[in-house]
């Protein structure tokens, strides 16, 4: 496929302005068996996250007497995008994403409260359309909060980047593939700490600074939706199903 014209008259491929984010919908508490869960629908992305624990650390020799171990597994479903994902399960890319998501949560989750145990976060990408790692991180943050795992701060994530010389927020699939740069970022709400920062492509110092400001602004929008999703679970009737 030829490179499309990414920015036309100040509008992007799907008609957004550079600072618009795709429609984002988050629902918390969607799984019965998980302690906490969240479904994120962000543009064409559909991501499901489930949190289990704190429970016994397996294998035992990896348990830490001072804190809980955080385990994150990100996987893409075989049907999540056209081609390329014929086999499910971990691969080089998903192992990397699992690692960066885990490292984003390590400074935030109060693991010292649960010694010798592990907290498991399972993230399943059901449908992918660019920016799955930030969608996954957003889902995982809501799922952790829904599980009642104490966190010092809420984590929100968004991708920023550059298309045809223009700095933009929340890149879609084509923008990611044909743009000049893609910078996924995760920022905490209160502390404004950057817990995830990766970069693909090239950016100047000034552009990165501009991107960072945009990311903080974008994360704030994402945070509002995350917080609403968590509050809304208390309006639902099916809340807290009895386990027999």
């Amino acid at each position: 496929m030829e490179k499309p014209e990414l920015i036309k008259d100040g509008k992007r491929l799907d008609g957004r302005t550079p600072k618009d984010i795709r429609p984002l919908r988050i629902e918390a508490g969607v799984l019965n068996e998980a302690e906490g869960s969240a479904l994120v629908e962000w543009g064409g992305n559909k991501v499901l996250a489930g949190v289990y624990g704190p429970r016994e650390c397996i294998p035992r020799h990896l348990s830490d007497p001072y804190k809980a171990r955080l385990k994150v597994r990100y996987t893409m479903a075989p049907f999540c995008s056209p081609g390329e994902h014929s086999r499910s399960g971990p691969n080089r890319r998903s192992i990397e994403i699992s690692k960066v998501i885990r490292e984003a949560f390590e400074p935030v989750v109060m693991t010292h409260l649960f010694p010798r145990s592990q907290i498991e976060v399972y993230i399943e990408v059901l449908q992918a359309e660019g920016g799955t790692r930030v969608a996954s991180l957003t889902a995982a943050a809501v799922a952790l909060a829904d599980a009642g795992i104490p966190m010092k701060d809420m984590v929100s994530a968004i991708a920023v980047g550059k298309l045809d010389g223009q700095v933009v927020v929340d890149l879609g699939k084509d923008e990611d593939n044909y743009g000049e740069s893609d910078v996924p970022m995760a920022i905490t709400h209160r502390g404004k700490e950057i817990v995830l920062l990766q970069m693909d492509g090239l950016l100047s110092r000034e552009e990165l600074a501009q991107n960072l400001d945009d990311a903080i602004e974008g994360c704030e929008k994402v945070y509002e939706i995350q917080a609403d999703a968590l509050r809304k679970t208390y309006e639902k009737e099916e809340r807290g199903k009895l386990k027999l």
Partner: protein
Amino acid sequence: MNIERIVVPGELIWEQEMRVPNTAVVDGKTYAAVVGMVRDDKFIPLELVYKAKAGDNVVGVVTDVRHAGYSVDLGLAHDGFISSKFTRVSFKQGDLIFGKIKFTDEVGSVDITDAKRLPTGKLVSVPASKVPRIIGKRSSMLNVLRDGSGCSIFVGNNGYIWVGGKGNVQLALKTIDFIVKKAHTQGLTDAVAQYLNENGGAVTVPPKDAPEGAMPPKEETKEANPLMQPAAEKVESGQEQAEIVEKTEKTEEKLDIEEM
């Protein structure tokens, strides 16, 4: 006037430093660490991971008989332990117990004391954050629940609840489910009494905060100290026992209990 708001992790609760559980203090300000409700100067967690602490009541399942004691599943990251040194009762694998936490240590081990064996009954698990609502103020909710269903109920702070005895067990379970779903609402004791009455229960004791005449006239009330009910010692007739066993089959299957 109670002004309530629901906060999410990282949200400011108070401008000043307050050392309460499930919050984080940063730069002299108090922030929520879990989803919870702020009512005046109280923070009520709505989602919570149970942390064992000394003095809590627990309901558990004996998972292993070891030579120094018994391992007990409490639904936590680690099994609790009953030392046979301090207990006269002996347990079998699969026994349901009600006990008190004697002490916990910094790596999460839990020691249980005063363990009693519970007779065959239904074991259910609820989120630990809902347990205070199921017990109520000075166990008001639990009294209504026991009274309305006629069951014997033991509630563990760990979120395990044992329901058994002669009453309507299914009604008690339905009502517990009702409480769990409505745990974040106000005036719940009255709603529960109404729910019990509507579903074939008979609540005789009016809740303390209910207005006069809101409840059916008080009839002969049972002894008003249900926490002390010696349910473990109750002998049940064979037929009733069989009925309860039938109802608990599902639980037992799940817990993989050997038939005694």
